[in-house]
């Protein structure tokens, strides 16, 4: 070989593997490997070592079908325990549709007083009318009260003696000139003093 020429030292060495093995190793190895293979073969089997009764799988199919039929029968029987009117379900569907999909919309009724706006407007009108009435009433009372007061003053004035009025005027330094006639004095008094002033002072 070519490499022996290039590596004479290596080529000269004996081609052995200088390792030992335990005694009887290879004999034991054979039996060990056979056991391992055997065990491995067992685990690869489909039935895993279990046995089934004869014709089991053939009968199993029929048994399963029978059981299914029985279950279905039970369900059917329980469903027919109650009776319903003839064509009930046909009519039921139509009835439901009439009430839902096919239902006509009811006419819309607008209630007058249902609107809040109307209520507020009515309340505002009422308040306005009431206030106006009260105001007018107050004004008329005030007027009549004024008229009554004037009338009372006039009455009081006519009840008072003229000489008393003249004396009062003199005292209040209103009359400086006593030469004024009585008629002139009366007109002066009536023109310059209201009945209330005379009543209050007297």
């Amino acid at each position, binding site marked *: 070989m070519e490499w022996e020429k290039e590596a004479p030292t290596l080529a000269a060495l004996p081609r*052995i593997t200088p390792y030992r093995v335990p005694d009887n190793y290879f004999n034991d190895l054979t039996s060990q490997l056979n056991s391992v293979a055997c065990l491995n*073969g067992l685990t*690869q089997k489909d039935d895993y070592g279990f046995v089934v009764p004869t014709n089991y799988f053939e009968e199993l199919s029929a048994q399963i079908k029978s059981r299914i039929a029985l279950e279905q029968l039970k369900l059917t029987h329980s469903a027919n325990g109650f009776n319903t009117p003839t064509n009930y379900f046909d009519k039921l569907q139509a009835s439901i549709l009439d009430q839902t999909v096919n239902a006509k919309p009811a006419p819309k009724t607008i209630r007058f007083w249902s609107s809040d706006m109307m209520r507020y407007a009515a309340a505002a009108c009422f308040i306005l009318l009431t206030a106006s009435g009260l105001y007018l009433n107050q004004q008329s009372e005030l007027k009549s009260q004024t008229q009554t007061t004037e009338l009372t003053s006039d009455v009081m004035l006519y009840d008072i003696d003229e000489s008393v009025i003249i004396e009062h005027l003199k005292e209040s330094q209103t009359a400086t000139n006593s030469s004024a006639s009585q008629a002139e004095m009366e007109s002066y008094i009536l023109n310059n003093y209201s009945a209330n002033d005379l009543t209050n002072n007297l």
Partner: protein
Amino acid sequence: MKQVEDSEILLKFSVEKTRNEAFSLLLNKYQQKIYWHIRRLVIDHDDADDLVQESFVKVWKNLANFRNDSQLYTWIYRIATNESITFLNKKKLKNNISLDDVSGELSESLAASHYFDGDKIQRKLQEAILTLPEKQRVIFNMKYFDDMKYDEISEVLGTSVGALKASFHIAVKKIESILTNDELEY
């Protein structure tokens, strides 16, 4: 004991009745070769024992699917080689070490091994082989110790004949260099 032909083994294995017999024949024919092939890679006997058993269990499981596109011999060798390389890679990952450190561990295992039966030069040779990269070591072992043909090695490793020749040539030069440099010590 007369060596049984691979074709006879395969034929007997294909019949369920004779399957166990065929497997026994296969074991008798190949178990030692496969054991030593693995042992040279992993050094330790216990590790080799585990791996050889795992390899032959795989052979048992997959022999029914063997397609005769390679020799039975190289097919079994391929299983054993892959198991060994997988083992060494796991050792690398487990200990979080590089390939060189794995070789160092194997050298320590060699030194401490109670099952080493060679002289100093033999020990030196084994240590020199452990310095080779993993795949190169496999190629060297199969060519040097098992005297396998390059075609057969190519079937095992899936590498071209040219690459195998180159790899073996480099390995031989490296080992020769180690042996020659240390020759003066002896």
